[in-house]
């Protein structure tokens, strides 16, 4: 039975193969025939069918269409006077009808193909043989076609010679003056050129409006030239310094945190790479998550916030000092938290709640100081409205303070109370702190980069309130089917579905803000980061909704699918938006641009790395869940994951490399010494000279 179907499959394969080869040959033959026929028409349309009434008219036409080189040649010939007639190689063509003959011969070749009979067909060898035979036959056909073409060309050349002879004779027969005049007229016509000053006139050129930017590098561009940051009113150096330090320490934690993450990812592939207690997987995993959360993302976001919160109120920051204290406190939290975790001191294992409360205290204090600082700044704003980016940022600070207090106040949460609060805390941390604040970043920095207002203020407000309403409910969806109350799980699932509203509203708003400005993406190095962030904002958030259902919890919960999801969101959304914001603002603070090639490298390595990281984990996670559902031995699912974990490590390495590149870019934006510019130097020297003169004068 099985071998029967196999043979059937093979024979149908053979027939298919035969049909393919045959049709390839037929197509070649047909194409050739058509080309010959077209050629024939051209040949037919020769001497008598060019539409001229007489030979004379035709010859005059030849003379009228001489090109300058031909005229030159003709002149040379004329000088010799007594010499031969000029041999013009004009297209004069005629043809023959041999094509039909060869067509017939081609078809007879085509039939030779069917030599193999259907009796010897049940193996792949036959198909290969068939193809091998077909190759010389097809080559033969092509060679023959070449021969025929050459023959046709010969005939047409011979006709051209005849025509040329006639033309030469005609020219000889013409009176001297007449031909001279004709040639001269033609020469003048051929040599005519515009003066190139028809539009500009004779005035010297000057770029009075400063529209022209000169690109000194005239070699082929390896990367497309992107627009430089537009010069803005200069920023208070005190603010610039604060924002830069936020960015720099954030970047430090990004590199530290993802180095740990990369190392932990490698441990999935090589578990015995080290056997040190401080570096064991269970201790390093929270070091990774917490340092990228509280170190990188929180500091990065806050830095961008410190710039935009006063800016949108046309105001200055209430207190720089509080800003610096914030910076120090958050860095202290991550530093001490990391050491504590590695030493084995943690809070009991709830995700993102691994730092103990004394370590988290400076962070909470920093948030309170920042909230106070921002509120004071907003209170003295020069605008009537509170711009929506400030809604999101201030709300995020309020929420982060609330959840930290709820989660960390040390006198409650016995038994499952801990788990209920944990679900609430970990998801509000992600959604109401990182996502909320980052949305605020997008509401300011995206319109700024596109140089047009946000598409709809109302959509932004709708997203704001629905985000609070639904997101607050969804924490328990991390504990579906666990022993926390069933109604709480259901509320979380309903809330997760409700998240469609703010996410669609937000995405629509951002995408529509691009309306009429899509072309700006190609010459901006910040907008691609925004685009990636927006795409993942939609897909990542919707994926979260999909993961919350009871049905999907069966195969996705507890697997690496969740890990992929958290990277698609925390990295794809939050991190890309923070990068976008930093590339917007830092060149404006320092006046120095990052090298375009390394910005491109950063962008692509991060994006491709993220894909290599998350797609295999999603596939592997799903397969693993299905394996558990089938009741297969647990170890089978571990073995099955091995290649997926390897891909994750590869993707992770790319992401990690991109962070090194980003750090380099940050350095170039901040502290690089620009190459000496002669013009700048000259101005400085003039200034110096002038100063000396004035000194002497006194």
């Amino acid at each position, binding site marked *: 039975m099985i071998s029967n179907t196999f043979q059937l499959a093979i024979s149908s394969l053979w027939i298919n193969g035969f049909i393919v080869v045959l049709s390839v040959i037929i197509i070649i033959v047909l194409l050739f025939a058509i080309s010959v026929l077209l050629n024939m028409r051209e040949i037919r349309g020769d001497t008598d069918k060019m539409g001229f009434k007489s030979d004379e008219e035709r010859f005059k036409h030849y003379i009228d269409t001489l090109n300058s080189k031909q005229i030159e040649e003709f002149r040379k010939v004329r000088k010799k006077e007594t010499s031969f007639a000029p041999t013009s190689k004009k297209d004069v063509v005629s043809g023959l009808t041999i094509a039909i003959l060869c067509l017939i011969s081609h078809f007879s070749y085509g039939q030779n193909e069917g030599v193999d009979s259907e009796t010897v067909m049940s193996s792949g060898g036959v198909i290969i043989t068939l193809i091998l035979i077909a190759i010389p036959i097809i080559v033969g056909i092509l060679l023959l076609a070449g021969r025929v073409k050459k023959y046709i060309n010969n005939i047409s050349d011979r006709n051209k010679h005849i025509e040329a002879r006639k033309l030469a004779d005609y020219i000889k027969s013409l009176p001297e003056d007449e031909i001279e005049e004709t040639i001269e007229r033609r020469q003048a016509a051929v040599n005519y050129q515009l003066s190139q000053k028809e539009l500009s006139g004779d005035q010297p050129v000057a770029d009075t409006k400063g529209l022209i930017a000169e690109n000194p590098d005239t070699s082929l561009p390896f990367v497309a030239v992107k627009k430089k940051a537009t010069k803005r009113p200069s920023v208070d150096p005190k603010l610039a310094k604060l924002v830069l330090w936020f960015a720099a320490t954030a970047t430090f934690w990004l590199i530290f945190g993802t180095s740990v993450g990369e190392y932990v990812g490698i441990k999935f592939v090589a578990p015995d790479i080290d056997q040190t207690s401080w570096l064991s997987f269970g201790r390093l995993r929270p070091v990774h998550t917490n340092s990228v959360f509280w170190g990188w993302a929180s500091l990065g976001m806050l830095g961008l916030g410190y710039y935009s919160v006063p800016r949108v109120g046309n105001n200055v920051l209430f207190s720089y000092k509080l800003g610096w204290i914030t910076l120090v406190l958050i860095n202290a939290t991550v530093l001490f938290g990391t050491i504590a975790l590695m030493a084995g001191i943690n809070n009991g294992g709830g995700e993102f709640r691994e730092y103990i409360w004394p370590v988290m205290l400076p962070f909470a204090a920093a948030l309170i100081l920042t909230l106070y600082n921002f509120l004071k700044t907003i209170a003295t704003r020069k605008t009537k409205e509170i711009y929506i980016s400030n809604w999101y940022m201030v709300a995020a600070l309020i929420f982060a303070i609330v959840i930290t207090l709820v989660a960390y106040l040390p006198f409650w949460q016995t*038994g499952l109370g801990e788990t209920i609060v944990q679900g609430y805390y970990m998801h509000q941390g992600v959604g109401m702190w990182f996502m909320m604040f980052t949305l605020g970043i997008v509401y300011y920095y995206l319109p700024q980069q596109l140089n047009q207002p946000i598409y709809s203020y109302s959509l932004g407000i709708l997203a704001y309130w629905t985000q609070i309403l639904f997101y*607050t409910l969804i924490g328990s969806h991390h504990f579906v089917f666990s*022993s926390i109350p069933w109604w709480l799980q259901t509320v979380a699932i309903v809330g997760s579905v409700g998240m469609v509203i703010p996410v669609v509203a937000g995405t629509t708003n951002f995408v529509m803000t691009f309306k009429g400005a899509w072309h700006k993406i190609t010459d901006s190095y910040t907008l691609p980061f925004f685009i990636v962030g927006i795409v993942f904002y939609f897909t990542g958030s919707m994926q979260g909704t999909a993961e919350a259902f009871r049905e999907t919890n069966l195969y996705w919960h507890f697997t690496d699918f969740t890990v992929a999801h958290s990277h698609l969101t925390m990295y794809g959304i939050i991190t890309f938006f923070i990068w976008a914001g930093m590339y917007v603002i830092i060149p404006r603070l320092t006046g120095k641009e990052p090298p375009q090639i390394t910005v491109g490298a950063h962008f692509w390595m991060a994006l491709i790395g993220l894909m290599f990281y998350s797609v295999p984990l999603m596939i592997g996670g799903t397969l693993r869940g299905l394996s558990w559902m089938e*009741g297969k*031995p647990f170890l089978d699912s571990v073995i099955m994951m091995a290649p997926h974990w390897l891909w994750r490590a590869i993707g992770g390495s790319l992401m990690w490399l991109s962070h090194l590149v980003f750090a380099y870019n940050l350095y170039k934006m901040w502290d690089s010494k620009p190459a000496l510019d002669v013009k700048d130097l000259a101005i400085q020297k003039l200034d110096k000279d002038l100063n000396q003169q004035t000194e002497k004068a006194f």
Partner: protein
Amino acid sequence: MEFFNNHKSLFIATAALFLILTFFVAIMPALNNQKDNAPLPNAVPLSAAAQKGKALYIANGCVACHTQQVRNIDMDKMFGSRPSVSADYADIKRQDIWRNTATLMGTERTGPDLINVGNRQPSQDWNLVHLYNPRTVVSESIMPAYPWLFILKEYPTMDDVVVAVPEEFLKDKSKKVVATEDALNLVAYLQSLKQTEMPTGTNFPEFLYKRNVKSAAVASSGGEGPSKVIAADGVALYATNCQACHQQNGKGLPGAFPSLAGSKVVLDENPEIFVDIIMNGYNARANEGFGPMPAVGTMANLTADEITAIMNHEKTSWGNDAKTVTVEEIQKLIDKVKK
């Protein structure tokens, strides 16, 4: 709107909405649960050693990969005989003023769930050698090794617990691996992880999303009476229940777990002792250095059908060539040896 242009009203409204929702989805349910919850009557509090072991479990972040919850869905049955309930966690309190309560329910199952591992894998020998390096007993494992819970001694004393680590995992072959207090405490904690029996007469939540009609039929028959509905997969069942000690090649681990290849018990024509060992455990070869075997069949609630499949797999693999047994025969013996 004027309301939105006043930062006080805007942000007070925002905070109020968030606080109200927070109260209803987090604070109120958590407080409720704390108030109306008590440990099951049969629950055994952790011993002092297990308490210390739990602290190590927390410090080393084991929760990153191991959950401690049996969800009320059929696929979680492999980790426990009943779904976890709120009362299972009622006795877990704050560790101290500095550190929070640790229910250790977890959100990631890179490794297996451990809430009932004390029943599933009670052997101290296995747990110790597995902690020293998991690859000694499960070659495909990716779990970290914990050598810092052990010390190397040339001349262990009588009180020292020596771990039978295979030679290829030892750097210095002249020294013996001795478990520290920490390792023994951690194993004590793992051994204490057992699902508490529900008081008789109480209903516990049902397992939802049954795999298919067949497995539902087996579940409802509760392992009573021969079930011919499923042809159980001996290889998979062996992998789940036996392989961790006796190894995939059936050769066990010298000095710790006996070989099943060529084993007298396995090859015996009369399967009574074989069934007795599976159902009631075994410790007759301690003098040869082998650890006690737990009552795997009883603890994992294996059916006669499943036990038959495992036995036949063992009787016919790794060079073994004994007569296979039938489900009816084994059912009778199970009833006979039942204590």
